[in-house]
């Protein structure tokens, strides 16, 4: 009996050691290994979309910006209708998520509503991926309030002060005497970063509610009379008109100057509306084959018509020049 007990103790000791050593090996080398694994995935996981896989179908993986996801989905559908051998999967998650995925090499195109930071580009290069930036549409960021809010125009500086938490009451900007409820995005959003860097030029008020996407902000502002939000222009429209319950503010460059609405195409292309940005895609390396066809389709006249139809704006000459320099 005693011998048996000792034997079983021995065996379980061995099992124990085995598991322990496995666990330790897994843990201690985690950081270094993690990087290597993601690098490998970059080369293996990309599937060379240009050359096509064995079955003849080409798979393109696109991920990132919530502001861009509907637009790119529409572009992809139109492209797939013309090129049935190509399959394009478009998912959202936020610009930061797309950029993290292209650094890790798990996708072909990252949608991002902000440029990649230098450190992000370096990280991607360290993994053997050279991200090629393409501007494929222009977006005005609409500042929205509830339909019942009397305020119709705000200056860029006022919007910044409101989101920094310096202006807390609507009465300070010509509205009713009520506390301003801030709605914004989460830090994985390109819109969040763009708005912070070009409008706030400072930190968001910690009282801002961090919503998951553009649609969440639209819903929140529709039901909150004292709310304010910022969304990609495409999300304010339902067909050709502004969504019921919502008001898109006119924005002026400086306080006292007349406000400009982002809803008119001419205000965006002329640069009169102050909060506009190009929408980016980052391709993993110079696009080849079907991937290149898709990018060129987006930039074509037909692609730009779809962009306009989805509530965004076509590229300016400067944007086209930018693309010429980056696409070889």
């Amino acid at each position, binding site marked *: 009996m005693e011998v048996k007990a000792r034997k079983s103790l021995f065996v379980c000791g061995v099992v124990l050691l085995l598991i322990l050593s496995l666990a330790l090996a897994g843990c201690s080398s985690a950081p270094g290994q993690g990087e290597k694994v993601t690098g490998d995935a970059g080369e293996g996981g990309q599937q060379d979309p240009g050359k096509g896989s064995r079955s003849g179908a080409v798979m393109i993986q696109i991920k990132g910006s919530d502001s861009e996801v509907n637009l790119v989905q529409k572009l992809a559908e139109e492209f797939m209708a013309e090129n049935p051998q190509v399959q394009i999967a478009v998912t959202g998650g936020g610009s930061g998520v797309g950029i993290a995925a292209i650094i*890790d090499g798990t996708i072909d195109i990252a949608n991002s509503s902000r440029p990649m930071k230098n450190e992000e580009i370096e990280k991607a290069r360290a993994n053997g991926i050279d991200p090629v930036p393409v501007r494929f549409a222009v977006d005005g960021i609409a500042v929205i309030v509830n339909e019942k809010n009397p305020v119709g125009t705000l200056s860029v500086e006022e919007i910044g002060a409101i989101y920094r938490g310096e202006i807390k009451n609507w009465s300070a900007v010509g509205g009713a005497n009520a506390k301003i409820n801030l709605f914004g995005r989460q830090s994985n959003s390109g819109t969040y970063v763009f708005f912070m860097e070009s409008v706030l030029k400072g930190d968001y008020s910690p009282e801002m509610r961090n919503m998951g996407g553009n649609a969440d902000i639209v819903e929140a502002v529709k*039901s909150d009379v*004292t709310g304010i939000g910022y969304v990609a222009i495409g999300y304010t429209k339902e067909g050709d008109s502004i969504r019921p319950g919502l008001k898109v503010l006119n924005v002026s460059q400086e306080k006292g100057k007349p406000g400009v609405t982002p809803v008119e195409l001419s205000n965006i292309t002329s640069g009169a509306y102050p909060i506009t940005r190009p929408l980016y895609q980052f391709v993993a390396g110079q696009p080849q084959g079907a991937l290149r066809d898709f990018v060129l389709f987006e930039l074509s006249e037909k692609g730009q018509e779809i962009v306009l139809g989805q509530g965004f704006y076509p590229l300016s000459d400067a944007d086209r020049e930018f693309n010429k320099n980056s696409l070889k």
Partner: protein
Amino acid sequence: MNIKENSIKMIFLASGLLSIFILLGIFYLLFSNSFPALRDVGIKSFFSRGYWNPTAYSVPQYSILNIIKGTFMVGTGSLLFAVPLGVACAAYLAEVASPREREIFKPIIEILAGIPSVVLGFFGLVVVAPLLSSVFGLPNGINALNGSILVGIMALPTVVSLAEDAVSAVPQEYRHASLALGATRWQTLKNVTIPAAFSGVLAASLLGMGRAIGETMTVLMVTGNALAAPSSFMDSVRTLSANIAIEMGEVPMGSLHFHSLFVVGLVLFIITFIINLLADIIFDRYRKGVSM
């Protein structure tokens, strides 16, 4: 025969050990990944004044005090909702309901536990939020109270089934004695059975809270996730788990932000660990107490 019996014994022992090692492995992973942040930022800055803002425009901040406060608000708030309801429900199931009724009610309550949290979150946004804003006259219902109610609903099945066990475990003699002294069934339930089951009910509540504190998706969807210190249940809060879920997707691996999220995870792990341990200890004492 002997070998067979031994090897089967071994297999069971190994499975038991494996789960312990998975736990230890997770703990080790959490700790080793949070270490760089604890070293570079310092434990102090995680627990000092300010708020969580690692992606700040100017100076990054790492304080998680507001987030811990938000987590406990949603946790305790959900208990205020789930415990009275859960205990009443358990008392009904254990004492009042006929076996037939119990057979119908119990599975239905257990279905509650099976509702996907994202569905519940959607329910919170579309139904509970407008309801709260009209009942309390608020501009919106995206706040800690909303999260508490929904998580309370999620914790309900846990509280009901454990509290029912506790109430059923009260020895029949107690009830008989009480009834023999002329007490009504309600008096017996109120003054004898539930007090006797008290520590079991307490443990059930604590386990419910452990569940509530770790809950992510529902809370993420309905509490607004603001970083400021909440002053009431009508304010927007961010919880530890929601904070990790929001930011983990975008951080570059190996960055300071990445490691500081592991610190948040470590804190969450410690909190739920302590709560579950307390619940276990209380439950254990209660069992021994009853059997004596």
